[in-house]
């Protein structure tokens, strides 16, 4: 049995670059799809299995909506409730996108909540105490987020501090800085009404922050799934050694991801301030857990095993629906949202672990 292996190597444009080498191989190898018959079938099954659960979040969201709508027809199944879910989740969603970027790059960035808190205090203080123009205040706040991301990246990629430790320390620094800026106070006065109108208005009855989230999600989806940058970022987060030895600029990629993550966190703080009309001191901290819950739950959706934008959005609204429904059902239990999100985070990570184990076990079939 003779089977040709055609190979291209050598300098570009070399007409002799394509040679044909013959090597004697098993007859099966010559037929294109070689050897062991049952292998393709396994993969088909695998695909089916994966398809069954990659949209499970969507199905679950539909079920939740139906259950809460039947349960609470007068409070949950209303337009205002839907708007509340959309608007609340929009801000969580913006931080979550930052969180996802960090996670893809291999950094567990827990400074996103504190970064958001600082942005809230900063954007309020710049307007109320320094009487800066709202646009300038926004730009400076975003710059502070970028600076936080840059410092994180420096500590992680240059000083080689574990990301969790680096960003834990950064959180504490940011909390101190936010206190120093705002004096531990919520800033109520002096915030421009033009500024707040960008968070309070609605477009086609939908609160405008939802469009911010939508725009950013589209941008990030494009960046991650449709540009070389996204591909390289995924690779260097998943296996930095292999990525580096394939010639990818691993440190620079992580740097960009953390920079963007910092900017997104501070933007989330700005949007929250716009929406509330006041700079609520420390309000960003409570967004940390929901962001991680949505990010991890998102990594089991649409493209299981990978942090991805579409999955994140599905997870975000799944959690948003759950929280809203439970809060309406049990208004006297203020801890219900925390309980739900904590459970969701642990379940999401456990699901991810089980799915990964299954993939390994399936792969073992070839050993």
């Amino acid at each position, binding site marked *: 049995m003779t089977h040709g292996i055609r190979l291209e190597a050598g300098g570009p444009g070399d007409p002799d670059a394509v*040679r044909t080498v013959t090597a004697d191989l098993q007859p099966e*190898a010559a037929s294109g799809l070689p050897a062991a018959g049952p292998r393709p079938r396994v993969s088909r099954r695998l695909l089916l299995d994966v398809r069954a659960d990659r949209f499970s979040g969507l199905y679950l969201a539909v079920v939740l909506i139906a259950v809460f709508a039947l349960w609470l027809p007068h409070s949950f199944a209303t337009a205002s409730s839907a708007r509340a879910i959309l608007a609340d989740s929009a801000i969580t969603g913006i931080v979550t996108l930052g969180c996802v970027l960090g996670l893809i790059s291999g950094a567990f960035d827990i400074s996103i909540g504190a970064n958001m808190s600082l942005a809230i205090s900063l954007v309020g203080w710049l307007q109320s105490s320094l009487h800066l123009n709202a646009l300038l205040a926004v730009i400076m706040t975003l710059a502070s987020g970028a600076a936080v991301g840059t410092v994180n990246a420096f500590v992680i990629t240059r000083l080689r501090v574990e990301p969790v430790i680096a960003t834990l320390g950064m959180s504490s620094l940011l909390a101190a800085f936010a206190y120093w800026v705002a004096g531990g106070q919520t800033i109520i006065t002096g915030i421009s009404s033009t500024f707040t109108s960008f968070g309070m208005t609605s477009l086609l009855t939908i609160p405008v922050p939802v469009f911010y989230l939508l725009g950013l999600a589209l941008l990030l989806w494009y960046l991650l799934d*449709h540009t070389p940058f996204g591909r390289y970022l995924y690779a260097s987060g998943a296996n930095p050694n292999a990525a580096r030895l394939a010639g990818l600029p691993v440190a620079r990629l992580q740097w960009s991801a953390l920079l963007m993550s910092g900017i997104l966190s501070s933007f989330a703080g700005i949007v929250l301030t716009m929406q509330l009309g006041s700079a609520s001191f420390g309000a960003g901290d409570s967004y940390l857990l929901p962001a991680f819950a949505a990010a991890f739950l998102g990594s089991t959706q649409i493209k299981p095993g990978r942090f991805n934008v579409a999955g994140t959005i599905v997870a975000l609204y799944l959690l948003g629906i759950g929280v809203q429904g439970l809060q309406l059902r049990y208004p006297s239990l203020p801890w219900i949202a925390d309980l739900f999100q904590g459970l969701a985070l642990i379940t999401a990570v456990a699901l991810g672990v089980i799915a990964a184990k299954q993939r390994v076990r399936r792969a073992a079939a070839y050993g």
Partner: protein
Amino acid sequence: MASTDHGGFALEVHGLSKTFGATRALRDVDFQVRSGEVHALVGQNGSGKSTLIKILAGFHRPDRPSVATVHGRELVLGDQAAAHSAGLRFVHQDLGIVPSLDSLDNLALGFGYATGAGGRIRWRAQARHAQAALSELGYDIDVRRPLTDLAPVERTAIAIARALQGIEAGASVLVLDEPTATMPQPEVARLFTMVRLLHSRGVSVLYVSHHLDEVYELADRVTVFRDGQAVETAPVGSLPRKKLVETMVGDIPDEPLADRKAGSSELALSLRGFGARIIRDLDLDLHCGEVVGVAGITGSGREEFCDALFGGRPRRGRVTVGDSLVEPMRPEEMVARKVGLVPAKRRDDALILQMSVRENFTLPDVSEFWQHLLLGHRSERRVVTDLIRRLSVTTPGPEASIEALSGGNQQKVIVGRWLRLRPKVLLLDEPTQGVDIRAKSEIHALIDAAAAAGTAVIVASSDEAELERLCDRVLVLRDGRLHADLPRSRANAQAIAHEALGSNNDKPVAIAGKVEV
């Protein structure tokens, strides 16, 4: 080695089947190891031998509840603790040791420490036990030295000593799963001595290996696995090597090209005063189309050559690719100058396990598919499908997870990753380690073809026969220095091994005879 049949069977399994999804990994396997024999288990990747080992060890459960017999006693398969107490002991390829701890602690892992009042560890008693366990294997190792200081074979000895703790030699079955995969030749000889010692004590050994030399050197009988079945069991003496290989895979020739030319005069890469942690002061000129081998025992610098040259670890000296000087520790500059590296550690340093075959293929550069501000997934898939065909990669498709492929096919993806970019220089570090015979011959053919198309190739390998098969020239390193520079006419496996070990080496050296297929 004479068969020492003690009458009964040390291990028997009957009608064992295992299905993963739609893949039948084992089909109705009957298999016996006689008491006191060294029984070799051979087969290509995917043949089912790993599955058998994993079932015996209790990692997997067989399809139907099955009973194995270990030295006459029944064992229900699929339970790790039961397998252990029945006397089945395993030394897996990664040894399951903790390199940063010393032998004493490693021996205590899993078996606990000798403790006195209040749970205090009785270190002195513990050290005595450890020393005794190792000396039974013929090793006198300082049990307080961390394992990182020890030779691979000494670490294997520790893993074996731990496996055999607390069991009588005659009541056990020791399973050695590819123990020599990362061992240089002289250490392999020491391992053999150890296995023979165990054999003489009456330990039954099941020896899994890719190396047929070892089978003939060590085993009494051999069982061949193919496509999930035990296709043949025979005394090694009655099964000539050619027949054994045919039984495993069918006849797969792995011969150099008849009409291969030496490299051109165009310089592809040059090293001046090249050095790393072990290597010092090495000069080399590598020409387009030339295949240069790097040989040497572990610790000679062979294992760091490619990585340091490529920029994976610090180095000294001047490295020039084409006519531009490249800084140390800059893999991205190497790639930009069309140099590729196939690292020795496939899983750690080369594969992105979470990604598909397609994404692993195109990892170093997707700019070709970046058109009209979109990453063209379709054009990428087309290129990858073509690569899969040309390199005959066995995969369900370009979108399959890279983890679903066998080691040999994963390795073809990594080699192909660079071939797609038409490299000027290709650095290969142990290119066929842990790869089955068929994939090995295919990878060798790929390397030939790349060289024929003008790529300059460096192959660092601990497999001397591989260097003989591939190289125009072999550099032999010893203690970090260039010890010999063998031209093709002299670069045969024996000569390479001889130069690598040196004549003043007082270690027992047995170079397994390379029997021609």
